[in-house]
Every structure is written in structure tokens, then in C-alpha cells.
């Protein structure tokens, strides 16, 4: 029988599809447990991000869930002044440079991406 198209094959499928999803998930719980925002505040921001993605044409089939989760995490860190867009962008560029500057097989250190 043809089942619901998004149904996983069994009860014990992977919880996270990629490691970054687990990291993003854990960061939200860690910040919440430190008392930096309430779970109600988090659910509201996540709900807004999901609605915004749908409005922009994401069919939102569950496979992009952690994309929304990550956008919501970036947003709540801005709202709570834990970080800001400029700082995040420059840190992301640093990590990118760190990869490019590190020979294949060597551990990636953030310092390898610093331009000074």
C-alpha cells in the first residue's frame, strides 16, 4: 500500500540527517537552559521562520526543518543581543578562509582564517 509520502521506513530512523542539524538543535537547548530565552519565545520565533519560509515558496516537507531552526536561532540571538549580523558574517567568512588555508587532512583551526 502506498503510504504517506514523507513517512520514514521505521520507528528508529536517524534523529538528525547531518551533524550541523544536531549542533543547531543543541545550541538552542543550551541557550534556553542558561535562561537566555523562554521556550515560548523560542517556539514563537521558530513558528515565524517556518511561516516566512512557506510564504517564500518552501514546500516545507519536513526535510528543511533544521534550515528554519537555524534561521530562527540566528534571529533569536539577534533579538536577545547575544550576537549580531555583522559579527556572524565575519565569523563565517573566517571559517571559510580557515578551510581554504588548511592543507587537506589537517585539523581546521579558526586562527587559520584570520586575515591579520
Amino acid at each position, binding site marked *: 500500500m502506498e503510504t504517506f509520502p514523507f513517512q520514514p521506513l521505521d520507528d528508529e530512523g536517524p534523529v538528525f540527517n547531518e551533524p*550541523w542539524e544536531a549542533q543547531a538543535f543543541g545550541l538552542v537547548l*543550551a541557550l534556553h537552559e542558561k535562561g537566555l530565552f523562554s521556550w515560548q519565545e523560542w517556539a514563537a520565533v521558530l513558528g515565524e521562520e517556518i511561516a516566512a519560509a512557506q510564504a517564500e515558496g518552501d514546500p516545507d516537507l519536513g526535510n528543511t526543518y533544521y534550515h528554519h531552526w537555524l534561521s530562527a536561532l540566528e534571529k533569536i*540571538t539577534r533579538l536577545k543581543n547575544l550576537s549580531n549580523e555583522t559579527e556572524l558574517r565575519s565569523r563565517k567568512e573566517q571559517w571559510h578562509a580557515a578551510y581554504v588555508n588548511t592543507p*587537506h587532512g589537517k585539523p581546521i583551526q579558526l586562527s587559520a582564517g584570520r586575515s591579520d
Partner: protein
Amino acid sequence: MSHDHTEPPSDLELRVKALESLLVEKGLVNPDALNIIIDTYEHKVGPRNGAHVVAKAWTDQDFKQVLMQDATEAVAGLGYCGRQGEHLQVVENTADTHNLVVCTLCSCYPWTVLGLPPAWYKSAPYRSRAVSDPRAVLREFGTELDPGKKIRVWDSTSEMRYLVLPQRPEGTEGWSEGQLQQLVSRNSMIGVELARAADASARGES
């Protein structure tokens, strides 16, 4: 392929690395605590917790009474404690009523007893159709209910999560809690399926 550099990972991964390294630097996130959280959700919480709760409710009337009155307290007594301060309510399937759980806003889910939700639970089609046409959704999961049976849909929130207590399958008199647990699937506790039917192979000897 050149070996004098490392191919950078995806943009998503870089965004997470940027956030994580900044939050750790600022002392807002402790890396050890982060690893413990991830390990817990990857390996320690899952639908087995919920199956334990359901099988206990099927076999222990006193436990069931407490569970129906205050599920948060009852499952905490089994060692399953929520971390987001949410309340848990158990909704019982009966001969007249079948219960189905959804979160229309995002993906609120009873993590402590079911682990993290499957992809379809988080999908827009499920979130909308569970409310607009629950019977069709159940049919897609292969679940046919009597036409006369009512379906009650519970919309989860960040403060209130629901766990379905499925009907105990017929022919399981005298089964132990451990044997009964094998009949309780994750999907039956969300309400898209029924508990597995009892058959000789399911009972096992362990």
C-alpha cells in the same frame, strides 16, 4: 584534486560553526553541556520511553489513574523529565474516540517520551491536513477506523504536549509489560496508527 587546501563545508554548516564558536567564546554556551544535550537526544530519549509509559498504563490501574490526571508528574516518576518546562497530557483512545496529535504552528512534540519528531510530523502537509482531513491522513498510514468513530485532533503548543494512549490490543491478557511494549509503535502514540496486533511472533519469549 588539490591537497593544499580543504574544501569548505556547506553554507549551513558554516553558519552553525560561526554561531557556535561565537557563543562559546562569549561564555554563553559550554561545549561539554552542548555535547551532553546532543548525545541525550541522539541516543537516550526515544519512543521506547513512551512505549514503557503506555505498557505500564495498560497493566497498572493505579499508574494509569495518576497518568490521566497529571501525566507530567507520572512520567517524571519513571525518570522521564522535560527540560523546557512543558506539560504533558495523555489522551486515551476508546471504543468511541480516536485521538491524533499535531502541532500546526511548528513541531511541538512530547520529546521526553517520544524523542524528536519524524520528518513527516514537521511537514506542512501533515500540519494542515491532520486538522482539515484527519481521516484521510490516517488512511495514508494504513489506518482504517470505523466510520462511526470520532477523531479528536490535539494541537500541541510550546506549553502543552500530548501523548496518545492507544487501545490495548485484543488477545494480550496476561502479557507482561515488556511484551506489551513491543506492540507500542511511535506512530500509535502520535495517533496515526493503532497499537500493533497481538500475534504469536510478537509475543516472543524474552
